[in-house]
């Protein structure tokens, strides 16, 4: 008796210690992962946005000989002090700034007979003579005619100059209102349409519900550029539906809004459909018993029941649209939006500092939308009641027919976009030679990396799905199931939620700053497949994390107590119980990661290298170079791959459910 009283106290203490250390190590590893792949890069980007370039006039010196020997050397800053301040050139600059010395020399003429000497007065400063770069502090001599070719170069410094430049450049600032405008309009359209669609599915007994549910998910399986390409074929100058626009151009806000409605539709739909499915039948019955009109019932029962879902859908759609880059890139024409500005600054002009500034600007609305959504979701959980009864719709000939009509229209819109892309990919030379051929599938003729890019994408998506599911699930397990360490766990949870607020472009750009720094020991990752995998996992971390947390919440904490009382280490419980029980959500997470890794452009467009070109980026680059048909062909390849993956996922989950989830069926 005495023995057994002592033993359980002593033995578990030891086991728990070892367990505890293991758990803490895991927690540290996951936290470190999120800090290295998210927090730190973002911080680096913020600091980069404050790196500026200025001409330091005191670091250059010149002398002149007008025929009476060399006059004393003078700093350029001294010469500048004598200039009329209104005529003083701007001293702030980009990395590639140049300033001619002769602008500071009073009475200079290239026809003059004077001879000039020029030098860098400090080590580290440098200037150009023509196209030759001159470093060091030696004097160099130039006749007057050559002296005008001497250009000073700026030195890095710190400050808010970039922000000043940003907010004083109208073309850049305009993008803020453009982005908000597009996101607001699209959100209104998408949420109303998605609500109608979800309502029709949940509240009527129209036929073909299964088919509609499948079709509405299509946009998730394609890159957001694809609707843009389809719209060009439908409404471009040679489009077959162009007259419908009545003279308006599809390139610009109209195109962006139509395409954005397409790609954001399923996201809004899923959220609203979930909210409507939670609708409590008892309330509907009560309102019918009280003889409320259907309209009254809609206003006072259906809408309030779905309000959190609606608010959530609004903010999710808004965030998706404002951070999307692919679509406005393809169809935006000269209508500038923030996400495309980042790309233009970074890829077009390699002005990384300004790219960082735009990123910070884009982060603000994304973070606000994210925060509001979080708060709303927290509220929703408390409204769920265990006594709720699911609503079962009853036939109503008129309503059912209207719902069917509406859903057919939405389905035709979605499927039509895809059909147009497939058609465009097969036509030889739109619109002059409409015969079919596979010429556009010969990707070696175009930019983008050919078929190799496609296989790279598949490999990448597979790695993301496998590694991502592992990392995410372990992280979620620690957050949800670990005992004690409350501060550490909530920190981890916060880190895991953050990626949702960070646009892919911003994440990618911050990775350049962080990983392409030769001083960073992780520099070796730059340009590899690994960095693409990491950025994609981090970009899609939050939704996966929340899915895993939800699944783990359903597991009774009793398992932990039982395993502890059986003196089993936590890893055994984890591998024997937790993981097998959570297999269906694990599969869901992996397919989510796979599909998104196949379609993402924004998270990888700054990070791919010649050896790791990707299909989604190829779509972008082919469209950029004018090979629109090939871009459509590649986009459709991504679609078919994702459909196949989805199908396999469906079969796998069914098989798995039968084998490992038999306990659920009793």
């Amino acid at each position, binding site marked *: 008796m005495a023995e057994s009283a002592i033993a359980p106290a002593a033995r578990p203490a030891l086991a728990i210690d070892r367990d505890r250390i293991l758990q803490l190590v895991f927690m540290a590893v996951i936290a470190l992962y999120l800090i290295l792949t998210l927090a730190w890069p973002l911080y680096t980007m913020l600091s980069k946005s404050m790196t500026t370039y200025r001409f330091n006039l005191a670091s250059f010196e010149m002398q002149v000989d007008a025929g009476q020997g060399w006059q004393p050397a003078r700093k350029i800053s001294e010469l500048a002090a004598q200039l009329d301040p209104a005529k003083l050139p701007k001293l702030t600059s980009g990395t590639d700034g*140049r300033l001619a010395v002769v602008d500071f020399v009073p009475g200079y003429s290239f026809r003059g007979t004077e001879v000039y000497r020029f030098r860098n007065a400090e080590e580290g400063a440098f200037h*150009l003579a*023509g*196209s*030759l*770069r001159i470093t060091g502090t030696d004097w160099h001599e130039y006749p007057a005619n050559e002296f005008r*070719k001497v250009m000073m170069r700026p030195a890095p410094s710190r400050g808010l100059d970039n922000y000043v430049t940003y907010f004083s450049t*109208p*073309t850049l600032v*305009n993008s803020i209102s*453009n982005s908000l*405008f597009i996101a607001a309009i699209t959100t209104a359209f998408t949420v109303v349409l998605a609500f109608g669609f979800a309502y029709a599915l949940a509240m009527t007994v129209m036929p073909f519900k299964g088919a509609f549910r499948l079709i509405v998910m299509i946009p998730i399986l394609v890159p957001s550029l694809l609707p843009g390409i389809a719209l*060009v074929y439908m409404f*471009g*100058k*040679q489009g077959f539906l162009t007259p419908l626009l009545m003279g308006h151009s599809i390139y*610009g*806000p109209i195109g962006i809004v139509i395409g954005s409605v397409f790609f954001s539709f399923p996201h809004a739909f899923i959220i609203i459909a979930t909210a409507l499915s939670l609708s409590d039948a008892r309330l509907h019955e009560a309102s019918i018993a009280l003889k409320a009109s259907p309209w009254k019932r809609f206003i006072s029962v259906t809408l309030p029941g779905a309000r959190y879902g609606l608010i959530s859908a609004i903010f999710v759609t808004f965030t998706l649209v404002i951070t999307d880059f692919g679509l406005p890139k393809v169809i935006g*024409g*000269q*209508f500038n939006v923030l996400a495309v500005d980042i790309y*233009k600054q970074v*890829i*077009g*002009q*390699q002005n990384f500092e300004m790219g960082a500034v735009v990123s910070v600007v884009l982060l603000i609305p994304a973070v606000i939308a994210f925060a509001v959504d979080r708060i709303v979701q927290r509220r929703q959980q408390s409204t769920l009641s265990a006594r709720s009864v699911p609503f079962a719709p009853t036939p109503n000939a008129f309503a059912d027919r209207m719902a069917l009509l509406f859903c057919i229209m939405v389905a035709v819109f979605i499927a039509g976009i895809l059909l147009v892309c497939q058609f465009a990919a097969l036509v030889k*030379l*739109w*619109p*002059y030679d409409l015969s079919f051929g596979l010429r556009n599938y010969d990707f*070696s003729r*175009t*930019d*983008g990396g050919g078929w190799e890019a496609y296989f790279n994408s598949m*490999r990448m998506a597979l*790695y993301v799905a*496998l*590694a991502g*599911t*592992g990392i995410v699930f372990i992280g979620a397990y620690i957050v949800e199931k670990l005992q004690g360490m409350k501060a550490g766990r909530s920190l981890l949870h916060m880190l895991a939620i953050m990626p949702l607020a960070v646009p892919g472009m911003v994440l990618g750009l911050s990775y*350049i700053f962080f990983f*392409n720094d*030769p001083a960073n020991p992780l*520099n070796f990752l*730059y*340009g*590899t*497949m*690994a960095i693409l*995998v990491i950025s994609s996992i981090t970009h899609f971390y939050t939704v996966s994390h929340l899915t895993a947390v939800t699944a783990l919440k359903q597991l009774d904490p009793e398992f932990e107590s039982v395993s502890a009382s059986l003196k089993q280490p936590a890893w055994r419980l984890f591998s024997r119980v937790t993981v*097998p029980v959570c297999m269906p959500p694990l599969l869901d997470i992996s397919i989510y990661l796979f599909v998104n890794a196949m379609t993402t452009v924004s998270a990888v467009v700054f990070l791919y*290298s*010649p*050896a790791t070109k990707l299909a989604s980026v190829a779509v972008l680059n082919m469209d*950029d*170079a*004018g*090979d*629109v048909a090939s871009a459509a062909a590649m986009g459709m390849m991504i679609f078919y791959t994702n459909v196949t993956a989805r199908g396999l996922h469906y079969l796998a989950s069914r098989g*798995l459910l039968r084998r490992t989830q038999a306990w659920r069926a009793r």
Partner: protein
Amino acid sequence: MKLTRRIFQATAFATMLAGTAAYADTELTVYSAVEAEDLQRYAETFNQDHPDIKINWVRDSTGVVTAKLLAEKNNPQADVVWGLAATSLMLLKTEGMLEPYAPKGVEILDPKFVDSASPPQWVGMDAWIAAICFNTAEAAKAGVAAPTSWKDLLKPEYKGMIVMPNPNSSGTGFLDVSSWLQLFGEAEGWAYMDALHANAASYTHSGSKPCKLAGAGETVMGISFAFRGAKEKAGGAPVEVIIPSEGVGWDMEATAIIAGTSKLEAAKTLVDWSISKKANEMYNVGYAVVAYPGVAKPVENYPPEAVTRMIKNDFEWAANNRAAILKEWQKRYDAKSEPKS
């Protein structure tokens, strides 16, 4: 459970794979702005003579490649640049990023195509010349005649029919802008672009896209380059290649070694070969003007007057004023349309 174990194994495997790559004898990372469809041919022709060197291409628009190289200044990823605008290479030269090297036989080349430094830091391959791609089928529909000069583009009937590349990202766009400023003078050049802006439908990211858009009838005319126009025409598009009478801007495609490459020997081999007669004959398939004297033969569909209308181009001026010109251009034109509501 088996599945879990397999997932973890696969994860480990994936991490391993990420770090490895297959190696031929020597692999060179070559940055280029040469048209995508020509890259394979260039690499294959080079490999006929040097099968032991494998080329890994990084291709993009001129502006993008230039910017990428500049961004990687402290951590260069490229070994060689083969086929990038000479103005861009001058920019890299001013950053001290190029390895001075006189390739074997450089003295045979037209001196206009060789960097003035000694030893030269870059060597030219061929000239690419601005042109207007004009879709005759769409023009007939719209009832407009073909332009013959740059000034013609300002005619009011062309309103909304012109697409041109954005000089901030496209080398072709930049050489157009720089040629107008040189042809018309600074003040008149900007006035010309102001007027052209009023007629322009949009600005594209890449220099070949305006011509491809013209080929697809998406625009009536695209300001692009002659080589691309000839290709579109050969591909069956109803396109005419027009060389404006005032003269046209041009740039060289050129080759250079990136300073600090760990594969200097292979890089030198490639650059030696890139100026050989055989290489120049290869360039001549698409480009009417090449660096090697006596090689050039007329190119199919290529307008013969292009060569005589090349302006006297001050590359150094263009390179040193590039940043200022691009900034001014962006300020004036980079928001073609405002939000309309």
